[in-house]
Structures are given as structure tokens and as C-alpha cells.
């Protein structure tokens, strides 16, 4: 069979096959109604939620700046917090724009895949840390607003406070990482396979999924037991 035979079969076969397959104009028009890809929605929603938290933190820090205007130490803390928070918000805007461009840009296939991978490998990893820090800022801004004692705010146990902040930061990051792990890993592996012209990763992922489910179930069981034990101890039974 020559190359020309392949082209001939393709051309003639398709003429016949496609003769009976036509989309009417009305069908095509109906296709244009907004459809939102679930993966894109999840990612964008996550970014928007944290941007809302950053906006709330900036507003609260704004109130704090007024409330602590005569306290130079607090100003030294709050002003950099405000600047960092607004930079995070800017990064969120950049990320949303970047994702929009990747989804709507006129790129060749390889470039489109590389850019999508770039979102998940680099930007989204950074964003998860930013999200954790943003919530910490929001929490701090709220506490300082509520506990404002005529322009002063006192941290009674600074070391304990710092350790707790660090733990909260790691906890929020960890929760995000676990919540997004499965979905993000799937997309990363799939895009990576596509880029490398292979399917190994996707096949391995399918196999790993069952193991992952068992691990999650065991973890959930341990955490539930710890929770019940905690309640029993606290209530003194």
C-alpha cells in the first residue's frame, strides 16, 4: 500500500462518511452557549477565593492602620503586611490572566501543553503558599482589629505565637496540597505524557489510584479515632 493509497482512502472514504453528518447552523449556534470546564472552574475558583481573602485582609489591615496610627511598632508590621498582601493580590490577577491566555491563545499544541504544565508546576505551587500566608494575614488582621486596646496590641507569648503561626501556615498549605493533590497530579502526569509522547505515567496513575484510596481511608480512620479520643479526654469520661 503506497502513501497515495492512504490519502485516496482517506479522501474518498470521508466524502461518503461525512455526507450524512452535517451540523445545522442552529446546532452550531447552540454549541456556543457557555460551557465551563470543571478543571478550569476549580482552579479559577480556588484563585478567586484566596483573592477574596487577600482583599478582606487588605481592608482589615486598612482599618488596623487607622486604629494603630499612633503605634510605630504596629505600623512597621502592618504596612509591610499590606504591601505583601497587595502583591499577592496582583499575583492572583496575573495568574488568572495567564490561565485565560493559555486557554484562549493561538498556540501550537506543544506550546499550549508546556504553558499548561507551567501553570501547575510553577505558578500553582507558589499560589498554594501564597494562599496559606494570605489566610494567616487575614487571621492576624482580624485579631489585631478585635483586640485593639486603644492603639496597642500585646502578644503575651511571642514564641508560642510564632510557633502557632508556623503550624497554621503549614496546616493550611497541607490541607490545600492534599485537597488538590489528586486532581493536580492527574493533570500534570497527563500533560507530561502528552508532551513526552508517552502514556506510561497515565497508566501508572490508574494503578496507583486504588492504593491511594486505601491510604486515604486509613488516614481518615486514624484521624477519626484521634478526634474521638480527644473528645473523651476533654470531657473526662
Amino acid at each position, binding site marked *: 500500500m503506497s502513501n497515495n493509497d492512504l490519502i485516496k*482512502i482517506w479522501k474518498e472514504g470521508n466524502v461518503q462518511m461525512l455526507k450524512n453528518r452535517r451540523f445545522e447552523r442552529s446546532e452550531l449556534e447552540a454549541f456556543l452557549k457557555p460551557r465551563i470546564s470543571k478543571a478550569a472552574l476549580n482552579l479559577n475558583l480556588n484563585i478567586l477565593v484566596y483573592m477574596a481573602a487577600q482583599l478582606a485582609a487588605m481592608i482589615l489591615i486598612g482599618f488596623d492602620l487607622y486604629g494603630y496610627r499612633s503605634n510605630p511598632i504596629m505600623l512597621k508590621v502592618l504596612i509591610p503586611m499590606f504591601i505583601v498582601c497587595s502583591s499577592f493580590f496582583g499575583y492572583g490577577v496575573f495568574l488568572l490572566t495567564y490561565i485565560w491566555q493559555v486557554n484562549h491563545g493561538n498556540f501550537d499544541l506543544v506550546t499550549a501543553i508546556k504553558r499548561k504544565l507551567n501553570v501547575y508546576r510553577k505558578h500553582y505551587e507558589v499560589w498554594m503558599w501564597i494562599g496559606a500566608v494570605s489566610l494567616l494575614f487575614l487571621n492576624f488582621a482580624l485579631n489585631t482589629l478585635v483586640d485593639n486596646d486603644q492603639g496597642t496590641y500585646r502578644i503575651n507569648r511571642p514564641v508560642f505565637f510564632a510557633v502557632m503561626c508556623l503550624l497554621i501556615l503549614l496546616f493550611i498549605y497541607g490541607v490545600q496540597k492534599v485537597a488538590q493533590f489528586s486532581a493536580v497530579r492527574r493533570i500534570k502526569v497527563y500533560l507530561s505524557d502528552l508532551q513526552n509522547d508517552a*502514556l506510561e505515567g497515565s497508566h501508572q496513575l490508574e494503578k496507583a489510584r486504588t492504593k491511594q484510596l486505601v491510604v486515604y481511608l486509613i488516614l481518615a480512620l486514624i484521624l477519626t479515632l484521634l478526634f474521638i479520643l480527644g473528645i473523651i479526654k476533654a470531657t473526662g469520661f
Partner: protein
Amino acid sequence: MDKKRRFLERVEQNQDILHKICALYAGNMDDRKDLGQEIVCQLWKSYPSFRGDSKFTTWMYRVALNTALLTLRRNQRRVRTESLKDHHGDIPAESADPPEEHGKIDRLYEAISQLHQFDRAIILLYLEQFSYREISAVIGISESNVSVRLVRIKKRLKELLT
């Protein structure tokens, strides 16, 4: 409104592209319709980025293949288990062409469906008689790479068809 009408006109004129890509990348009729819808929607969203630097069909192939490749995973498991009947089951029995003609195109589609998703895109463009340069521009690999891959793909296709 004119822009939308013009867009729909162009897509309608070139809708063969949609059907071919859907037949290569989606398993059954429902999946094909879903993929078709996904592609048309994505084409419309990307339409502002089309500035006429390339032919409309080249741009349409690029966006459609991009969408198909990234939508494929969802249907991958189903595609593996789909029968060929599901693929081309809507060719009418009373068609004037001899059944042998249907058999050839069915077998060609089936053989292409067994290739890796990137290779499917390359052979599709080759069969549509795109030049190596055009294929390279749509896929994003060098012309020499297109040439090397095509040799391998055609060899594989011939093995599958004999």
C-alpha cells in the same frame, strides 16, 4: 452580531474538520457530540486571537486538535473499549457505495485510533495534505521531526492495515 455570524459561517463551511477530529478522538456518538461542542465553544473563545496570519482552516485544526487532545483523557477508557460499530455506525445501509469502500475507511480510522494521540494529529494533517511546514506550525515540532515521525507513523499504519 456580524462577527458571530461570520464565525458560524466559516465553521459551518469547514465542519468536516470537526467531524474528522471527533471521529479520531472520541469514542461513541455522545462523546463525539460533546467533543464537537467543546471544540466549537473553544473556537469561538479563541476567535479574537485569529488575526488571519494563517489560513482559517489551519487555525481551526490547531485549536480543535488542542481541545481534542486535552479532552481526550476523559474519554480514554471508553475509547479503548468502544467497538468500531460505534465509531462509524451512522453510515446508512442504503448507501450507493459498495460496503468495501466503508470497510477501507473504517479500517483506516481504526488503525489511526490505535496510534498515540500526537501521532494521530500528525497523520490527520498529513492525510489532509498539509505541508511539513504547516504540520510543524500546528503541532509545534520541527519540520525534520515531522518528517521522521511521519515515516514511523506510516510504517505503523501500513502494518495495522495489512
